[in-house]
C-alpha cells in the first residue's frame, strides 16, 4: 500500500515536472525574445503574493496566484502608459510591492506562516502535486501548443519585430496580450513545482541556453521546452538525492545548463 502511494507521488512529480518544464520554457521563448524578462519576474512575484493572500484567507492559493499574475500582466502596459513612466520602473515597483505583500500575508497567517503550505509557494514542492495540478498543467500545455501551432507565422513575425509585423497587416495587440495572459497562467500553475521565487528561472534559463546554439527561432521554440523538461527532471532527481527544495534544485540545474551553454556556445567563438 505504501509502495503504491509512493509510486503515485513519484509519478505525479515526474508528470508535473515534464508539463511545468515544457510550458514554462515554451512561454519563456516569447518572454526572452520580447524582452519581457522583467515582466516575467514581476508576474512570478505577483503570483507569490496572490498565493500568500489565498493562504491568509484559507482559500485555494492557486486561484489568487492566477488572479494576481494575470492582473500584473494585463495592467502593466496601460499602467505604464497612463503614469507616463518607463516600464521597468513600474515593474520594479510591482516586484517589490508583491514581495512585501506576500511576506505580509504570510506573516499575518500565524497558523501557516513558514508552515509547509507557505514554504511550498515560496520554494515549490515535488511532493505536493495533486491530480488537479496535473490537469491544470496539462490544459495550459495543450493550449500553449495549439496557440503556437495555429498562429506560428503571426507569432514569428511579432517576435522578429512587432512594429514591422503591424505594418505588414498583422494585428499584433491581441497576440501580445494573449502571450502575456498565457505566461501569467503558466506562472501561476507552475508555482506548485518550482515556487514563486524561482519559477522565473525555469522560464528564462532553458530558452537562454538554446539561444547560445541557434539563430533559427523555429529551432529555439522546439528545443527550449526540451531543455526545460530535462532541467525539471534533473532538478527533481537532485532534490530527492540531496534532500533539497525542488525549486532551488531545478533553478540550480537550469542555471548550470545555461552556464555550460555559454561556455561551449559556437556563437561566442572568434572567427
Amino acid at each position: 500500500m505504501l509502495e503504491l502511494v509512493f509510486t503515485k507521488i513519484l509519478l505525479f512529480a515526474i508528470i508535473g515536472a515534464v508539463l511545468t518544464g515544457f510550458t514554462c520554457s515554451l512561454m519563456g521563448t516569447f518572454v526572452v525574445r520580447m524582452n519581457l524578462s522583467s515582466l516575467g519576474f514581476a508576474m512570478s512575484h505577483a503570483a507569490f503574493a496572490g498565493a500568500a493572500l489565498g493562504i491568509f484567507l484559507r482559500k485555494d492559493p492557486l486561484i489568487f496566484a492566477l488572479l494576481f499574475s494575470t492582473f500584473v500582466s494585463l495592467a502593466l502596459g496601460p499602467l505604464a502608459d497612463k503614469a507616463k513612466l518607463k516600464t521597468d520602473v513600474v515593474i520594479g515597483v510591482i516586484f517589490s510591492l508583491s514581495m512585501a505583500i506576500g511576506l505580509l500575508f504570510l506573516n499575518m497567517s500565524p497558523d501557516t506562516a513558514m508552515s509547509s503550505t507557505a514554504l511550498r509557494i515560496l520554494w515549490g514542492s515535488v511532493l505536493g502535486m495533486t491530480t488537479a495540478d496535473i490537469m491544470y498543467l496539462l490544459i495550459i500545455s495543450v493550449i500553449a501548443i495549439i496557440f503556437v501551432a495555429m498562429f506560428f507565422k503571426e507569432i514569428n513575425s511579432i517576435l522578429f519585430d512587432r512594429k514591422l509585423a503591424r505594418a505588414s497587416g498583422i494585428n499584433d495587440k491581441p497576440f501580445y496580450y494573449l502571450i502575456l495572459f498565457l505566461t501569467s497562467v503558466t506562472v501561476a500553475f507552475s508555482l506548485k513545482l518550482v515556487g514563486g521565487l524561482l519559477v522565473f528561472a525555469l522560464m528564462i534559463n532553458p530558452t537562454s541556453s538554446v539561444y547560445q546554439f541557434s539563430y533559427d527561432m523555429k529551432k529555439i521554440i522546439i528545443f527550449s521546452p526540451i531543455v526545460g523538461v530535462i532541467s525539471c527532471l534533473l532538478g527533481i532527481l537532485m532534490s530527492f538525492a540531496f534532500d533539497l527544495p525542488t525549486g532551488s534544485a531545478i533553478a540550480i540545474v537550469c542555471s548550470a545548463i545555461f552556464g555550460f551553454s555559454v561556455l561551449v556556445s559556437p556563437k561566442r567563438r572568434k572567427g
Partner: protein
Amino acid sequence: MNGDGSSIRKLVGYVPQDYSIDELTPFLVSDVVLMGRFGKIGLLKPITKNDKEIAKCMMDYLGISDLSQRPIGKLSGGQAQKVMIARALAKEPEIILMDEPFSNLDFEARKDVSEKLTHFHKNKKMTFVIVIHDIASIPKVCNRVIVMDAGKIVADGKKEDILKPELLEMGYKGIVC
C-alpha cells in the same frame, strides 16, 4: 483604398529607414523575407509553396539569394536594406512606402535597386512613395515630387518642374550646390 487599418496595411508594403538589427537576432534572412507575406496570407491560413516561391523570387531578383540562410543580424547595412526591400516586395502590395531606401547602398547598388523598383512600377503597377534626401537617387521614372519644409508641402508636381534650383534651395535652405 477602403477599409480599416489592418486591411489597408495588408495592401501597403513598408521599408524602414536604416533598420538596425541586433547581431544575435535569431532569424534567418529567408524567414524575414517570407514574413513580409504573412499579413497578406491571413489568420489561420497556412504558408503555401507559392508564398515561399514568391519570397525566393524576390531574393533572387535583388541578388541576395546567397544570404538566405544567414542570420539577419550578420549582414552589412546594405545587405539588410536589400532584405527589407525584398520583404516589402514579397508582399506584392499595391503601394510601397520607402523611407530612405538607398541610404546604405553604394552607387552601383542604388542604380541596380532603382532599376528593379522601376520594373515593378511599370510591370506590376506598384506605386512607390519614397522619402529621400539625396536628389540624385530619385528614380528616373518618378512622376511626382513633393518637397516639404518644416512639415509643410512647399512644392508638388512633376519632377522636371520641381527639381529647379530655386525650389530646391528653398527646401534645402540654401545648401544646394
